[in-house]
């Protein structure tokens, strides 16, 4: 299936490429039968993606963490 997609992809336009790459993310709706290992892998993946997004957020060096937290 994957090989087939790659073969097809050689004829895709840039826009189609973007759509094709986004498709797996959109289809990520988890199946009921996911195993414990799959669920853990997904949780780790989510954290990894979150960490990447956090890493890209620009912050001046002077910004301290919200410790001790006081509203």
């Amino acid at each position, binding site marked *: 299936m994957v090989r087939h997609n790659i073969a097809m992809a050689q004829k895709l336009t840039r826009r189609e490429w973007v759509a094709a790459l986004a498709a797996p993310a959109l289809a990520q709706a*988890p199946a009921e039968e996911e195993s414990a290992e799959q*669920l853990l892998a997904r949780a*780790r993946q989510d*954290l990894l993606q979150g960490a990447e997004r956090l890493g890209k957020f620009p912050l001046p060096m002077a910004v*301290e963490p*919200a410790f001790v*937290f006081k509203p």
Partner: protein
Amino acid sequence: MAAIPEDAFFAPVTELSRRLRDEEFTAVELTRAFCDRLEKFGPRYNALALLLREEALRKAREADDEIKRGRFRGVLQGIPFGAKDLLSVRGKPTTWGARPYAGQVFDYDATVLRKLDRARAILAAKLAMVELAGGGGYRYASASLTGPGLNPWDRTRWSGGSSSGSAAAVAAGLVPFALASETWGSILTPSAYCGVTGLRPTYGLVSRYGAMPLSWTMDKIGPICRSADDCGHVLRAISGGDSNDPSSAGKTFYYNPQLARRPAELRVGYAPVDIEEWAEESARPAFRQALEVIRGLGVKMLEVELPDLPYGLVAGTIISAEGSAVFEPLIRSGQVEQLADRKQIAGLKAGLEISAKDYFKAMRIRRVVMEEMRKLFASVDVLVSPSRFGPATKITEPLDRPARPRPEPKRRGLRDLGAAGNLAGLPALSLPCGFAGGLPVAIQLVGRPFSENNLIALGRAFQDQTDWHRRRPPVEPSTPDR
């Protein structure tokens, strides 16, 4: 012995207090009647964790003795209530809604329960909750030792989480008020779904000593009641400094509705896109009407928008890192596998792997969030937005993906107000504001830290103009389930 009239089960605390003093019924009669209802209807909504009938009746007798002697200790005296099962009660099981802790017993009472005992309120039951208050992130409403919280308005719908039993019990007239907790949405969501009034206090205003920790820097305890006014009375009793809680702000809340700012003096921020695009279509008429009611109170309405910050990601990272640290012994022991929700098990395990770098980054962005919220509250006094954008979900529906994906609106509006408000430790009040498809929906008022009096005053004014908070679900078993 006086029979308790049906209307008393849905009466506000202030009214019950007056009727107790007028000797229409005694605290023992009232407590026995509520215990009967808890026993009869609690399991119907999976709302009951533990009935405390004997202890409650003993306390009710003491309250009656005091009332007879003319010793009035305030409006909560002789009033039964329920507490989320994450609050420890000495010598009784405190399960945190989770199988691994089903046999857990503490030898001390949570501070909030001691304070309510001092006000002579009567703890009648411990109420069901999502296991570990949802730590790790759950997929299904069934993530609880007591099964999915069922909504009194429609038992095929969820009562919301994680304070499921607290909201359902108040909505169904099983207790006059209940204690709940919120880390991110756990008071406001069930309050909105069940059509009751919930107050999330400012972080640090209410002691968490004796409560299950999930996130040290985000956990709050607050009341779920029949009205904004009742929330004020309960908050008055449970607030205050506590040397046992390192996060205590050392402040006490004095309920002074007469001293709060009048609506005409308030600037209320709102975002039209919240209602016209983010909200589910069926709920929009109720939200529009609620906004008109608020406008009609004479407040100055201003259009606002939250700054573009990753609120949800930051809140999720912090709760995940702190929650997994809290429950590290459970995870390492393997007992985590006994939890009901498999996604939650995975989430707790993965949370242990969050790096210090990422946690600190989230906490630094949180500082920016707090600063931005401070700036926003320089131009407004209160923010108003839907508590949830639609009514309660079906109990079978996965909570981590929408039933019907919709195109995302271009403007942010106040969509992330829940995450932003919890990150900044801001108080919020959820007010029922109508129905969508026969299910309650609600708006939230959010204010500056320690501005609970303003929120409650505005909530009272709203509830003086509406009767959504007085609506009752069909509780009798003879009523056919929808």
